[in-house]
């Protein structure tokens, strides 16, 4: 039996920069002057989202924080800072930092220290997530965009060793990081350490997550890419004789709005794809032409005419049909999530991106209440997914 979980992922966007400014700018991230960020408005946004987190704590929606820098898409510029606040103001739900950008941060030991502190403050409610970072982040953080996959794994290894070593200083002299004296205080509350998650659809990385038992999160993977990633995870475990993973090892992040009616959910949900239509605008040197973005043999597809245009036809119907959004009244959303779970061969943790784009505080609170009270209870005690039936259906 699977008891699914719902998580609230809000990036705390700042959708108040005039359209003419964004149209004239080369990017909505990394290089947009911060004179367009009004501190009083930002303070109100922080208050509102923290109030949404308090509600989540009361009604049983787990909380995800993340970080991006220097742009309208995200005011969580330092995930450990925000996660520390959330740890103190909540008491029941789990908190996932997904995550601080370890490919940009120079010292993984410092990251481990921050997370151990949060784990203690929350009395063991922290999960730690890892992301490779996007191209604009390499610019904002002045981090070499080459070899971030290898750098990420070495950072994860060093963070893990920092969190699980308790007998005095150890030394680390790796390819990317050196630290001759590692001895973090406090040690984490959870033993041996907080659970690890990683957001990726890169198949070799998914395989490695499988071998390590790290939760694999797909961001907007849709049916096909998500299933491929999860299958890769399972196959990598099977290949070395590890047991089949439970569904809690799989997570999926999608846009989500739950309304009283389908009509209401679709109408409000249409404000969410702002994330893809506006906030993602990025200069070519910070996207397709940044070194390391793609293996060289894959660049012709990305560089030829017509590639990588900004999406602008993302209506809710399209997004729902592709499995990129869950939207509707509670019945509809339950059906969509169950169908998604079936088609990807099982997923235990749905991360809802609801307070996004132009969605208001009141609208977000309403959706969270409905999700917790009307959707979540119907995602409990679910029968296992019949993997073979799914494979047969896919083949047909």
């Amino acid at each position, binding site marked *: 039996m699977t008891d699914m979980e719902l998580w609230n992922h809000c990036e705390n966007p700042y959708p108040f920069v005039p359209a003419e400014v964004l149209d004239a700018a080369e990017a909505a991230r990394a290089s947009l002057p911060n004179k367009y960020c009004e501190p009083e408005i930002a303070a109100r946004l922080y208050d509102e989202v923290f109030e949404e987190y308090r509600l989540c704590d009361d009604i049983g929606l787990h909380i995800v924080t993340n970080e991006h820098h220097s742009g309208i898409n995200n005011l969580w510029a330092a995930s450990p800072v925000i996660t520390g606040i959330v740890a103190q103001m909540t008491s029941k739900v789990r908190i996932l930092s997904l995550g601080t950008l370890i490919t940009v941060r120079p010292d993984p030991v410092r990251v481990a220290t921050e997370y151990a502190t949060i784990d203690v403050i929350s009395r063991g409610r922290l999960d730690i997530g890892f992301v490779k970072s996007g191209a604009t982040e390499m610019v904002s953080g002045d981090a*070499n965009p080459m070899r971030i996959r290898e750098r990420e794994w070495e950072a994860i290894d060093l963070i893990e060793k920092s969190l699980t070593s308790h007998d005095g200083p150890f030394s680390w002299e790796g*390819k990317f990081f050196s630290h001759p004296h590692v001895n973090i205080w406090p040690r984490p509350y959870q033993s041996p350490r907080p659970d690890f998650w990683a957001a990726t659809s890169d198949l070799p990385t998914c395989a490695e997550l499988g071998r390590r038992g790290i939760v694999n999160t797909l961001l907007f993977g849709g049916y096909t890419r998500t299933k491929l990633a999860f299958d890769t995870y399972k196959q990598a475990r099977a290949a070395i004789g590890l047991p089949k993973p439970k569904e809690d090892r799989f997570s999926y992040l999608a846009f989500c709005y739950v309304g009283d009616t389908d009509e209401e959910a679709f109408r409000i949900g249409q404000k969410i794809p702002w994330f893809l239509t506006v906030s993602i605008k990025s200069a*070519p*040197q910070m996207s397709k032409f940044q070194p390391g973005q793609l293996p060289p043999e894959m*660049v012709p597809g990305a560089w030829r005419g017509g590639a990588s245009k900004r999406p602008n036809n993302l209506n809710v119907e399209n997004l729902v049909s592709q499995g990129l959004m869950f939207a509707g009244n509670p019945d509809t959303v339950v059906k969509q999530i169950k169908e998604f779970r079936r088609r990807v061969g099982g997923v235990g943790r749905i991360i809802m991106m609801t307070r996004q784009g132009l969605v208001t505080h009141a609208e977000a609170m309403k959706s969270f209440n409905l999700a917790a009270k009307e959707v979540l209870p119907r995602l409990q005690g679910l029968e296992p997914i019949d993997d073979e039936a799914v494979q047969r259906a896919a083949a047909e």
Partner: protein
Amino acid sequence: MTTLRAGRLELEVLRRGKGAPILVIHGVNPISSHAPFVDRLAEYGEVIAPSHPGFGASERPYDFDTMYDLVNLYLDVLDAIPAERVTVIGLSFGGWIAAELAVTGARKIDRLILADPVGIKIGGREERDIVHFFNTSPDELIRRSWADPSLRPDGVYALGWQATITDAMTDAEMVALARNWDSLCLYAWKPHMYNPQLAYWLRRIVVPTLVLWGDHDRIVTPSYGRAYADLIPGARFELIPNAGHHPDLEQPEAFVEQVVRFMGKDASR
């Protein structure tokens, strides 16, 4: 593909002409066989232009990723050239490699020519000496690196090459450009295009040195070039009119004339 064995590595190499060797150390992309300066220069010696590891068809070992590796590799390249004396020309990023190479005191270097090299820090901490190769729009890179972008020879890719990509290019050309760009980034993202220690040690260069600069270079300006030349004992500084960051490509005749005259040869032939 012609190759050159340098130490443990097999490098792709462009060779043209006969006579005393002229080693050309390339910048953002390997020296193109279409570049007009190559044939002209080859009238005065053998042009030898290897592709750095990770560029063109040259392999790059996994841990080979710093300027330290490139400098030692080019010491291997000098060893692999049978002649006793070698003229060394470094262009842009390759000028940085050539300057580092000369600082080592490599005895084989006969003369050193640096064309619009990067590699040192001159200005204050809030002054950018070198326009960011990787974080500047391709159109802006082209504006800054050519006196007249229409003079770009066909089939030659220099800074801002991304803005000149067309669907008519082959996949192989695109893959090669991506591979070069990735490798350059690996070597030079941070500090961006310079070694903080190099300016101090340029005084160790003892070979006759010519610093050439495109008078319209707005990637690294002529004033940076003059400061660069001032740090190298006895170096001569010459501007090439109507050229930007790539005088070898934009004014090949003037470029070769300056090089040849400095080599002590008759440039009128």
